[in-house]
């Protein structure tokens, strides 16, 4: 047994005969905010439901705070879950929604009142205590769902894409509010999202999932700067990923990621890696060893984004707006250099 606060050990989760998450190992530290990040259907919700006890694992164990809770039923685990849909109780007022769990615990009534008011205040809803959920805005509902879970002081708070129903501005607001709440309460949180920028902004550590496996686990910076695999790089915004088809005499020969075109692009230097990847910002345009034709230009505020077609496929480049402007159809030089490349495996 590890000394992690939450520990998933060889967890296999299945719906009937179809296995959604095979053999997952994951340790989460106390007071940490960890993100499960991954594309749709990779098993984020499934993993979370297993931690909460809403789903029995096919095999493996779950430890929370040193106790094996694998067979403990969901209502005894003291885990909070904020659903994507919030799952508020429509027949109860905001106040009663927050009081719901405390009443079940048979907390004394003056304490309930105090804790509920405190909980509502913490998310800025004290003025709206008597409203029904249907009379609250999306952001307010979201905060109410948070307050309802937080007031129970759960051992772990699980959040399943809680921000995905909000508009962009509100999402940013709630994001920082969540961070504030996490700092204040020091509750261990698992945050599910398929938005990489959200994961990067929020998390102490990110668990990148793919098809029920952990593709990579690390701090936001580690994942952002140093993805290990093609999948991770793809997800973290490395839009130019090329296969190292051949390597000799101090030159690397690049080919399209999965094209069978025989064309090669040579770059100086040697690499052991199976693939090389560049962010659009790492591609320089206007000078360099390679040549291609501009297929599209898009203005994006601080930068201009080019799609350049060359022999092995499309290269995406992002250059400061101050640089010389190229038009669609122009033939331009560009540079993919080994020093700015991220080596990857499959």
């Amino acid at each position, binding site marked *: 047994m590890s000394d992690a606060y939450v520990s998933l050990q060889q967890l296999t989760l299945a719906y009937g005969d179809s296995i959604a998450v095979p053999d997952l190992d994951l340790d989460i530290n106390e007071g940490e905010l960890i993100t499960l990040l991954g594309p749709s259907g990779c098993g984020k919700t499934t993993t979370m439901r297993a931690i909460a006890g*809403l789903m029995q694992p096919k095999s493996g164990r779950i430890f929370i705070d040193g106790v094996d809770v694998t067979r403990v039923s*969901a209502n005894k685990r003291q885990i909070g879950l904020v659903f994507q849909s919030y*799952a*508020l109780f429509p027949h109860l007022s905001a106040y009663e929604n927050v009081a*719901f769990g405390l009443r079940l615990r048979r907390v004394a009534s003056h304490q309930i009142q105090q804790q509920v008011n405190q909980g509502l205040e913490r998310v800025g809803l004290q003025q709206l205590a008597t409203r029904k959920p249907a009379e609250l805005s999306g952001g307010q509902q979201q905060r109410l769902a948070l307050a309802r879970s937080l007031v129970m002081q759960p051992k772990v708070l699980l959040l399943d894409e809680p921000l995905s129903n909000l508009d962009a501005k509100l999402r940013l607001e709630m994001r920082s509010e969540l961070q504030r709440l996490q700092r204040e309460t020091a509750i261990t949180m698992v945050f599910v999202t398929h938005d990489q920028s959200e994961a990067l902004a929020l998390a102490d550590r990110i668990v990148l999932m793919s098809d029920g496996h952990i593709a990579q686990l690390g701090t936001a910076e580690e994942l952002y700067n140093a993805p290990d695999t093609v999948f991770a790089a793809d997800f973290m915004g490395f839009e130019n990923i090329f296969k190292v088809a051949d390597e000799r005499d101090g030159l690397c020969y690049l080919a399209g990621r999965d094209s069978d075109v025989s064309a090669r692009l040579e770059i100086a230097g040697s690499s052991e890696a199976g693939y090389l990847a560049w962010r659009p910002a790492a591609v320089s345009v206007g000078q360099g060893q390679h040549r291609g034709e501009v297929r599209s230009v898009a203005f994006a505020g601080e930068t201009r984004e080019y799609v350049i077609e060359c022999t092995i496929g499309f290269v995406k480049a992002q250059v400061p707006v101050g640089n010389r402007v190229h038009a669609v159809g122009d033939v331009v030089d560009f540079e993919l250099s080994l020093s700015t490349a991220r080596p990857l495996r499959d």
Partner: protein
Amino acid sequence: MTQLWLSRLVIFLTLTFLIGPFFIIIFAGLSAGSSLAFPPDGLSLKWYLAVFEVESFRKSFILSMFLAVGGTLTALVLGVPAAYALSRYKLPFGETIKLIVAAPIIVPGIIVGLALLRYLVVPLDFTVTMALFLAHTALVLPYAVRVVSASLQNLRVDMEEAAVLLGCSRLGAFSRVVLPNIQGGILAAFILGFVTSFNQVPVSLFLSGPGVRTLPIDMIAYMEITYDPSVAALSALLAFLSIGIVFVAERFLGFSRYV
């Protein structure tokens, strides 16, 4: 212009056929004469009062009330969990069960009545009241399951899961979260079931014994012997009762949302 007149005519005819009979019985019951006739033979309230004097009407009214209230409540006790199970779990033969539950609506009442008489009352020595109770429960069950299912459909499963994570048992989640949110549907099912059972004729026709008759059957029997306006008066009173119930339900519940 002709179009306008045409549509007015259609509306007029429709209303005449729907509401006309209702006015006819109201006025037929107001007759001062002693035989059922329209237009009434003078005006008086005596037949409306006479209704309450007929011993057999009183008995059969009580029986009908008992069947409508008791049968509907029993149907709800069975139907609410059934609707819940059908909507929440993938049951083996779920579709078949739904079909069987709906059968009493599809199968003609006469057949249901005859079958109950032939295979329950006669060979098993069921009392007529018991058979009636069973029959009315079965007849109301499909409505109970359907109406309650419809309101369960609008209730997301994750709400119950949220309740469980806050410390409820599954049963606790059902009573604290599911029931309060479908109570409108349950009340609607009750009213629908009550009216269905109270007005039920074909099944009850077969299931009547000495002194045991539902009110509609009793009214038919009464008319065969005595052709006076009291039957019309009673019908009008019953219609007012139904209208009153539906009106109150609509007013306080938005009944029409559920049916």
